[in-house]
């Protein structure tokens, strides 16, 4: 195939992946809402198919441009899809019970990819000389992975806040009885009450579980993000002669890093654990999104590769 054919194939596969993920997200959504296993199983199948198309899109794009396929925002968006969905599937294989959460994982990935395809699509092309370094492979790959994982952690923090609110509302007014047997009875009653008045949101895993999930995901993403920043500094040192220059992109990466570091501290600080920490994580999400979309397009800097 000629590079042009490869590029066209890549675009088609990327859209195929987006459509598959939308279908899969819908199926997971049905499973979440109606607790029908069948939907979830179908959702996994469609997700796997979508991932295959997604990987195909990245590979054909890479072949078309003869370099790693993460050189501009459109390509980043494709990679974000691969990372998020692969992560979700790996994790699903270890803990099948999280499957209904797939809707909350796939929807952000789909949004990122669709936005990339609609707004930031650029025809396949080579890199400008300043980006032409082997560090692009390392730095950009780490940055995409780290930020995808941290975004996912924030999604769990959002779900935590939702569930925490549901649990707070449903908590019986009187404190549970002390004696074990009585308490068990009490719990059953509470569960029944919950089942009766529950919104779909009460089907989320417990607030504690979601909080822990958010923490574990952050603990996974934070070192990757740290590494991405360090690798970026090494690259900047090689390309521009300074490892740090408060370029807007660098500044916002640092802001995200600081906010997630604050989140990690908050989880170990009395009075900040729980809701406040979750809000910090959401602020972190906002900074990541701003860095990716606004800084690449609105704010002028050396990292102006977003370009349309």
């Amino acid at each position, binding site marked *: 195939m000629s590079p042009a054919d490869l590029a066209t194939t890549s675009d088609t596969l990327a859209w195929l992946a987006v459509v598959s993920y939308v279908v899969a997200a819908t199926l997971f959504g049905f499973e979440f809402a109606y607790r029908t296993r069948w939907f979830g199983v179908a959702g996994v199948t469609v997700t796997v198919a979508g991932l295959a198309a997604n990987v195909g899109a990245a590979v054909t794009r890479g072949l078309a441009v003869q370099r790693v396929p993460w050189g501009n925002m459109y390509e980043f968006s494709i990679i974000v899809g691969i990372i998020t969905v692969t992560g979700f599937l790996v994790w699903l294989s270890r803990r099948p019970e999280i499957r209904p959460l797939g809707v909350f994982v796939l929807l952000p990935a789909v949004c990122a990819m669709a936005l990339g395809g609609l707004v930031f699509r650029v025809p396949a092309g080579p890199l400008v000389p300043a980006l032409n370094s082997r560090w692009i492979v390392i730095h950009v790959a780490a940055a995409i992975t780290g930020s995808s994982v941290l975004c996912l952690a924030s999604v769990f923090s959002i779900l935590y806040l939702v569930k925490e609110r549901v649990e707070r509302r449903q908590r019986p007014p009187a404190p549970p009885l002390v004696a074990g047997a009585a308490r068990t009875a009490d719990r059953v009653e509470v569960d029944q009450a919950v089942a009766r008045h529950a919104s779909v949101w009460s089907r989320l895993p417990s607030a504690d579980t979601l909080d822990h999930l958010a923490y574990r995901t952050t603990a996974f993403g934070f070192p990757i993000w*740290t590494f991405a920043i360090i690798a970026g500094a090494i690259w900047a040192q090689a390309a521009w002669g300074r490892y740090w220059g408060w370029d807007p992109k660098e500044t916002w990466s640092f802001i995200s890093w600081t906010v997630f570091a604050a989140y990690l501290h908050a989880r170990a600080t009395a009075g900040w654990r729980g809701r406040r920490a979750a809000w910090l994580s959401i602020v972190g999400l906002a900074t990541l999104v701003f860095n990716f979309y606004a800084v690449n397009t609105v704010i002028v800097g050396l990292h102006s590769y977003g370009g349309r």
Partner: protein
Amino acid sequence: MAVELRPPAARPDRPPRRPGLGDTLRQAWREYRSMRTALVLLVVLAAASILGSLFPQEGLSPQRVDQYFADHPALAPVLERLGLFDVFGSAWYMAIYLALLGALVACLVPRTRALVRVLGSRPPRGGDLARYRTQATFTTPAAPEDAMGAARRVLRRGRYRLAEHDGELAGEKGFLREAASLLFHVSLLVLLVGLAYGKGYGYRGQAAIVEGETWANARVGYDSFSPGRFFGAGDLAPFQLRLDDFSNSFYPNNTPREFASQLTALDLDGRELQAQRVAPNRPMTVEGVRIFQSDYGYVPVVRVTDAKGKELLAPQEVLTLRDPATEWSTGAVKVTNAKPQVGLELTMFTGLATAPDCPGGAPFCNDPRLIRPVLVVLAYQGDLQADRAQSVFTLDRSRLRPLGDRPVLLAPGQSRKLANGMTVSFTDLKQYSVLTLARDPGVPMVAVAAGLLLLGLVPSLYVTRRRVWVRAVPDGAGGARVELAGLALQGKPAFEAELARLAEQVARGSGGLKPGSPEDRGTLDAPERST
């Protein structure tokens, strides 16, 4: 602080005392070095950094700061007073991060001391095992001593530090978490110190060199120069640079592919030190100074003679400004000894094409490749006002009027007559290369600190602290009843399963569960789960 697993036992009540100034200060100090302070300062630092990306920064894009002053003449001076055009160098930003560094140091000292103390002590006794939230119990046909032996082996294999307290085995592990966390925080401190050191004692500047020229590393040779606070005038390394050749290339779609300078470094006596092709991402290091390819431009060589052939301007290298979007370059020639004075506005195209050959029906366009260079000359006559400070790239046309009604087009080697009889010749075309030269003595320190920081970060997030106690008592029928209990500081949800697994291994190691015993599984008492 994460070192103590349990709060120390309450001290016997002392008579109440009015808190004095010392107590208030001590309280304030304790508050300052608490994690809450670090957390708040981190958030404040993040918020302050946002300002640095919302306003143009002096150190990053001075032109945009000037633009801002032009656009908002009333607001800009106020913002400047507040340091918003140099956020990261401003006093208040410095104050925030110094406060954070202070808190960091203040919390690291007691944390280190606590870690050393805990490492030097034996794992403490568990006391009444029944009161722990996570426990496991089983009965085994083995004798209590054998069961304890098995427990010892299992815990040792699990890398627990062990201590024996009459009949009770205490195990503890996971100090790597705190040690790694300390490494992370200390590295962060070192990194910031290295950053400040490099900034203070280093410098950064830009210089333009024309092909074939030799440039001396002296302050006057730089077009822009920003030294650190402690960088002395005599600290510039003594060397010269010669630009032997400059080359650039483009992809078929006319986007830049590469540009590179063939540079030779010479000592002050002109002896060659080293030679290298310097390109983006491929810098050269001379005497500790890193030299980077930044930009480039074209240097048409222009000669002007009067109507009688007398030379008014000897062949002059005219530095032009290149527009990276179109690859046109613009420059100016000032013939001050003509009467009246003559100014020439030059536009140099690398490959001028006209109407039918241009995309989208444009009247003319430019091929970025240097295939057919054309110099377009617009001549003016009058007063150049050369005694006033002005840009070398443009003419001040306020006292000039056009000379002739159409521009003159010149290919290299060509000469043309202007309307007043003067002759302009485009004798040669050269390129110049813009290099960034930088010295940062803090780099090694920062690099090592960054490496250690990463090294410390992962275990500080993943290693979990655990304490486990084991006791085995005779069950009255020749076997032993084995009790395990534990405490987890992190990763609590996983700990129940972990302790159950330990119990299972101990049971297997001591000959299996006693058949028919009431607890042939570890019973896990977990009334409430918390994370």
